[in-house]
């Protein structure tokens, strides 16, 4: 069940009305749990039992970790609680990738033994709910959390339908305390929730789906396109993935908010990040937080010397890339970002290059840093989007060895873009204008819209709704992160 379909909104209204009719919060929780499992089944996943099994296993292991008397026992239960979700994730997501890789390696060395593929169907949202289960057992082991009293609450934490299939990845400590009270659908939450949902739908259906159409054409066969087209398609894909994923996150957060649940933000203006480190604090924030807390820091973080810090950083990002998908392009994308973070840490963090530069500390310098950072990030999107490593090579070749093929329209577009960049430099050089620009770009419009008085809020719904009806392409494609 896609968030963009009428079925989802009928489902949501039915659940909301049912919640209102129930008096006890236990029944309300059970109703949302049932609705979440129904949502999962309706989304096309036949792996309901798998979701239930991961939930049960991690709940049981969490309880065992907490009740174990010795450190050894705690470690054993942690290992079991960690391995079960990871083995399931590994089997369903990576076994085909592994077989393909082995087959390729064997054929490279001249051994023509082809292991048949298992044709495993990837369960929807497996990367997300296994990570939430992992965070629960880890937090109990680290003493940050006590096991939840009531299995249904834990099951709801894992399967809560707004964030079940594509996040945000919520911590148990953030979600479970919100289950202590009866669910009341207040006017304020309803207004905030609907404001977020509409904005999310607009980003997904109007922006992402329209620009994605053109990016898909180019990436389907990059060899047949010019350098400029590849660059344009990369930029369009960067816009697509941001609007697609942050649109999903807004719909998820908005839906949860209607029920009175507050989910963490997943994006905070990532394309205004002035370095790669900041980018990862603004992009898919709940995943970055997970990788940092449960991978980078347990590996030693920056506590074990320079070399280990770099290794940990790089390894964390490679795993982050692999989490996104079972393909070498994602591994390469993760490694690329790992390298960027590593270089940033070395040159900016340790060698302090540019630390005394007056230009870089100025407003035009800020714009310059944003431009450079985003150029690097968008190059990464090309790796992420390419269908194969061969396509990555083709695209890189075309970008690096620019073919200079222009049409009148593309020439105008390039001149226009350069003009805008220069204009931005001019604006940022004039202090009052720069301050206004910063305020304009960082203003919390959604918060503003969700506080509007009734006529203005109705106008907000009407304008965004009409734009969605009018400008969205028919047959909305799935969210990109559904595939992860």
């Amino acid at each position, binding site marked *: 069940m896609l968030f963009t379909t009428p079925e989802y909104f009928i489902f949501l209204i039915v659940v909301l009305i049912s919640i209102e009719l129930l008096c006890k919060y236990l029944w309300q929780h059970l109703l949302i749990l049932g609705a979440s499992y129904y949502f999962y089944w309706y989304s096309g996943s036949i792996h309901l039992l798998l979701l239930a099994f991961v939930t049960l296993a991690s709940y049981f292991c969490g309880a065992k970790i907490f009740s174990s008397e010795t450190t050894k026992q705690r470690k054993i239960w942690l290992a079991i609680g960690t391995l079960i979700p990871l083995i399931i994730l590994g089997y369903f997501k990576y076994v085909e990738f592994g077989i393909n890789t082995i087959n390729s390696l064997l054929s490279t060395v001249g051994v023509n033994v082809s292991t048949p593929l298992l044709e495993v169907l990837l369960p929807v949202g497996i990367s997300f709910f296994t990570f939430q289960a992992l965070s629960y057992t880890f937090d109990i082991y680290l003493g940050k959390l006590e096991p939840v009293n009531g299995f249904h609450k834990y099951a709801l934490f894992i399967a809560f339908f707004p964030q079940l299939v594509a996040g945000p990845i919520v911590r148990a400590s953030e979600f479970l305390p919100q289950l202590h009270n009866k669910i009341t659908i207040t*006017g304020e939450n309803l207004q905030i929730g609907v404001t977020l949902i509409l904005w999310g739908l607009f980003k997904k259906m109007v922006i992402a789906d329209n620009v994605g159409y053109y990016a898909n054409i180019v990436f389907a066969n990059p*060899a047949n396109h010019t350098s400029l087209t590849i660059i344009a398609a990369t930029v369009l894909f960067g816009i697509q993935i941001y609007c697609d994923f942050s649109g999903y996150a807004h719909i998820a957060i908005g839906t949860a908010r209607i029920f009175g649940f507050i989910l963490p933000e997943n994006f905070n203006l990532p394309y205004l990040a002035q370095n790669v480190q900041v980018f990862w604090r603004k992009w898919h924030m709940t995943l970055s937080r997970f990788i940092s807390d449960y991978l980078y820091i347990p590996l030693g973080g920056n506590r074990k010397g320079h070399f280990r810090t770099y290794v940990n950083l790089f390894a964390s990002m490679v795993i982050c890339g692999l989490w996104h998908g079972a393909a070498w392009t994602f591994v390469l994308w993760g490694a690329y970002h790992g390298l960027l973070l590593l270089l940033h840490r070395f040159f900016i963090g340790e060698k302090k290059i540019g630390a005394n530069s007056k230009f870089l500390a100025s407003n035009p310098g800020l714009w310059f840093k944003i431009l450079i950072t985003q150029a690097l990030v968008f190059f990464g999107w090309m790796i992420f989007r390419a269908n194969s490593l061969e396509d990555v090579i083709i695209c890189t070749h075309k970008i690096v060895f620019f073919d200079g093929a222009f049409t009148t329209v593309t020439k105008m577009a390039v001149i226009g873009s350069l003009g805008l960049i220069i204009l931005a430099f001019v604006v940022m050089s004039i202090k009052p204008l720069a301050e206004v620009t910063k305020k304009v770009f960082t203003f919390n419009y959604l918060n503003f819209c969700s506080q509007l*008085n009734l006529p203005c809020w109705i106008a907000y*719904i*009407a*304008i965004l709704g*009409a734009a969605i009806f009018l400008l969205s392409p028919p047959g909305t494609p799935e969210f990109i992160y559904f595939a992860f």
Partner: protein
Amino acid sequence: MLYRYKPLYSKKRYILQTICINISRVLKNGPKNRIFVVIGIIVGVLLAVGLFYGGMYLLDPVLDDYLHNKPITRLYDFYDLKVGENETAVYFIGDSAVGSAVYIPQIMAELEANGYPNIAAYNLYRASDDPVRRLSQIENIIESQPSLVIYGIRSWNLKGDTSWVDEDVILVNDRLLLDSDAEHIYTDEQLEDIYSDYNPFYMKIFLKGAILALFSGSTEDVSPTTHLTENAWDAWTTPEKRDKYDSLYAGKIQENVEITDTYANITDRNIYSLSPFSAEKTQKQLAFEFMLERLKEEGIPVILVVMPQHPILSELTSDESRRNFHNYLNSTGLVWYDMEQMYGDEHFSDLAHTTWNGTIDFAPIMANIIIQEVESGAIHYT
């Protein structure tokens, strides 16, 4: 929370005051009460729907101009003319290979030079055409009474099931004369597409094209037969561009630059469906046979032409596959001509489409086929 005003006067005045004060608070401070929020949502959605319909109404003239000139609309406009009632009409049907290779003015000139000035030929190609998509038009074709149908075909036109992407069929669904016996060839989903309603929520898919066409000035009205008497070339290029196009592609193929990529594409991605042709009945074959049968029943002669293709594609086609394809064509009992390997790579702009020179060279061959049919008495010439 709803504001409850203390009654000072009558009960009616109390209710009125309460409503007024609550409305003014909602308008001023925002709808904190959920009833007002729900009312706001309903009103907002209704307004959005109204704006959408209003937008579509305003854009209707632009959309109409654009849709009127869509190839499928023009094809049906042409069928409605029933040109076969008054002249000896030869229809070329098929996909873009027919579109690029069949140049009607040249064929007509060849016919005239050979003493047949009263034969009118029409190029009724459609890009990405296959028999399943064409099947929905066959009754309209029959009603327009052609004297001869020349069907340009390639083996992949008959392999597998159709990749149904016919979003345009809705534009003519009120003019479709689909034979009920043909319905079983379609899937339920395809039939739903064919019979779907013409509504604004569907029509918005054409908005983007309509607006682009408006700005490029390509929505001017033209008669239904204008493009059909010419070919794909005339729709998008000028004679000067044709020459440039030819030299560009001929050069690239000779230098083996583009073709290497293309070769990789067809082998890796199988875009031209290089799987062997088998005798097992596919959806496309069923549709093809149904069309031929209907034309035969109505006494309309049909000739099949295996369209020219690039030597690389021919190399990739196995002898067995080719033999199966030819056996299949023989099984139709129709006259067919094999032109698959008649050209070298200099005649192709890509793997399946001829260059301008290839198109010009193809015209006398087609004219000769028509003349043979006339001289054999298969078609009536006035």
